[in-house]
């Protein structure tokens, strides 16, 4: 067992990469000058090897080649070499001195309070290993020319391993250490190779040539599987591959029902970087870009310029498709010291989101200015969260108008096509959505909170989790009302909560007339496929039937029956 970090089933023989011995020769029999020469020769050879790997990596992996730049710099690092040469003077062998020096710095990184930097310790050790192997006259671990397909089992995989690896023949990765952000995990996901990390003792238990299967999602690993197990996993693997291949063909396709109703299937993102994944999974835009990442884990407000850069990056990445960016949505449940939000006993009913923005208007205006400035780089939608009534929409729009006027006075261009909408997540807003629809360009239904507020169920309270259901007829009737009211005023209505990606609910939402479904990127193609198999007219006919039902259970059952 380990941590599944890259989904997929791997079946094949293990190739275990051996570590260098732990008892390195310590006492040198050479004189100091000779050891220094050994070290120099080693440094230049290793630097050469890394430079060659880097050239190869550039072609194969693009950005990951940059990690190798850092490794090349390690081989000529002033601080490290001063340390190592000092050790040589004390009479240590070059290999022991390199080991000590590398461990010193790797430990510095490993003890940092930052996952990313901790993982970089592995990169430093990778260079160290390479140097020590060279000094000991050991072969470098070489995955460039594999003779048969195999699952790579290692203590940890290093950038130089993965960069030069013969990708055609690697079925999966299994490593003793690492987490979701370790190099192995990131690489495996990039290359779409199944992987498990953190098995702790995989390399000591598994032998080269052992037959094994594992599931890169659940982290399940079976060594020397029985015929029976093998059959089960083979079937699952085949199914996985077929699904993936089939869904990939939908990537460039529109999301359209059999009878020609076109909708938008978009992705929810948390940072501009997530656009890459959204595009890879065929999203037709971003239906919710949460901007909180700009405000969290820091001591001061993000500047207008910093925000502008982030919004611009997302808009450019998704153009010509639209990006709906939600303005700041924080409250007393998040620690943002510089906002001065007090701890509240009911943060979800408290001073949060638009309520904060309408009182601390400078913060809000800065964000709106950054958004408007970015608007010329793509198709922008601005979305206000936690709207409970008409006054808030008007106040927010008034501040938006001030931001626009300021920019106009400063001669800064703003796109004339910016859409302004609200999140419908508070029941009072849903109920008066006919009135609100006259003031905005779109609605996006935030089901996660709409369910919690409508059913009075704290969604974080496990004790009452069973009461929290998107199938509750009260919730679904509200959703239907919102869509209907939006359409009466001629505006589009989307959904950006978890429910939008729920394959059991999609037919019903489609039937209600929902125009945009925004979900996790990985659900996009599945949703598009489902929509393509549905008949809009038929799903419309289901709506009254379903909404007449009395309980969430009944509705869920009926929907599941229809989706099979």
């Amino acid at each position: 067992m380990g941590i599944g970090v890259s989904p997929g089933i791997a079946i094949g023989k293990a190739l275990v990469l051996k570590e260098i011995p732990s008892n390195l020769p310590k006492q040198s029999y050479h004189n100091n000058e000779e050891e220094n020469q050994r070290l120099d020769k080693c440094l230049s050879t290793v630097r050469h090897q890394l430079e060659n790997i880097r050239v190869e990596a550039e072609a194969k992996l693009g950005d990951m080649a940059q990690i190798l730049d850092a490794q090349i710099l390690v081989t000529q690092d002033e601080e490290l070499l001063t340390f190592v040469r000092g050790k040589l003077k004390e009479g240590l062998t070059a290999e022991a001195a390199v080991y000590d020096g590398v461990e010193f710095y790797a430990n510095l990184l490993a003890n940092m309070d930052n996952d990313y930097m901790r993982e970089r310790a592995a990169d430093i050790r990778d260079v160290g290993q390479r140097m020590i192997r060279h000094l000991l006259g050991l072969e470098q671990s070489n995955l460039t020319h594999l003779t048969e397909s195999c699952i790579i089992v290692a203590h940890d995989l290093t950038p130089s391993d993965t960069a030069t690896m013969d990708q055609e023949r690697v079925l999966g990765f299994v490593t003793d250490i690492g987490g979701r952000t370790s190099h192995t995990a990131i690489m495996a996901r990039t290359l779409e190779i199944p992987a498990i990390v953190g098995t702790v003792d995989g390399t000591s238990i598994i032998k080269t040539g052992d037959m094994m299967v594992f599931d890169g999602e659940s982290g399940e690993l079976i060594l020397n599987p029985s015929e029976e197990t093998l059959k089960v996993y083979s079937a699952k693997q085949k199914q996985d591959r077929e699904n993936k291949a089939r869904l990939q063909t939908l990537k460039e396709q529109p999301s359209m029902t059999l009878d020609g109703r076109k909708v938008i299937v978009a992705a929810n993102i948390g940072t501009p970087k997530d656009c890459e994944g959204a595009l890879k999974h065929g999203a037709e835009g971003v239906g919710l870009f949460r901007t909180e990442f700009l405000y969290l884990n820091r001591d001061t407000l993000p500047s207008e310029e910093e925000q502008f850069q982030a919004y611009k990056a997302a808009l450019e990445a998704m153009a010509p498709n639209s990006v709906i960016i939600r303005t700041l949505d924080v409250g007393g449940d998040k620690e943002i010291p510089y906002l001065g939000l007090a701890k509240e006993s009911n943060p979800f009913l408290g001073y949060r989101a638009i309520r904060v923005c309408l009182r601390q208007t400078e913060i809000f205006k800065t964000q709106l200015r950054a958004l408007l400035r970015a608007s010329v780089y793509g198709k922008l939608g601005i979305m206000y969260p936690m709207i409970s009534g008409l006054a808030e929409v008007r106040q927010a729009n008034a501040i938006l108008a001030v931001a626009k006027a300021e920019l106009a006075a400063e001669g800064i261009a703003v796109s004339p096509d910016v859409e302004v909408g609200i999140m419908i997540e508070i029941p009072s807003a849903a109920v008066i959505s006919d009135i609100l629809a006259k003031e905005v360009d779109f609605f996006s239904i935030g089901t996660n909170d709409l369910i919690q507020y409508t059913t009075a169920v704290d969604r974080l309270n496990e004790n009452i989790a069973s009461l929290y259901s998107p199938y509750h007829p009260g919730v679904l009737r509200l959703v239907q009302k919102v869509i209907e009211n939006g359409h009466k005023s001629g505006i589009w209505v989307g959904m950006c909560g978890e429910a939008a990606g729920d394959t059991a609910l999609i037919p019903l939402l489609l039937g209600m007339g929902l125009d945009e479904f925004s979900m996790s990127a990985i659900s996009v193609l599945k949703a598009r496929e489902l929509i393509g198999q549905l008949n809009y007219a038929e799903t419309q006919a289901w709506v009254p039937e379903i909404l007449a039902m009395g309980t969430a259970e009944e509705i869920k059952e009926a929907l599941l029956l229809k989706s099979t």
Partner: protein
Amino acid sequence: MIEKEYMLTNPQGLHARPASLLVQAATQSKSAVTLIKNGNEYNAKSILGILSVGAQKGDSLIIRIDGPDEVETENKIQALFAGNFGE
């Protein structure tokens, strides 16, 4: 001697890639380049030194450059920070 304060705005902080770029700029310089965070000084010509700073997004860093080509080096480093290290 030039000393200038910068705010780090990369999402991942001073990780491998930006650190490499900074070290490359520093090693090309004939001047001494020092990175200062919370009063601690680090050799900016050392990738290990820079990585061990563990600088994260939002951190404020001082770069001190002392030597014959300090202005030119300062310009290079300023461009790196201003361009978010190309990220």
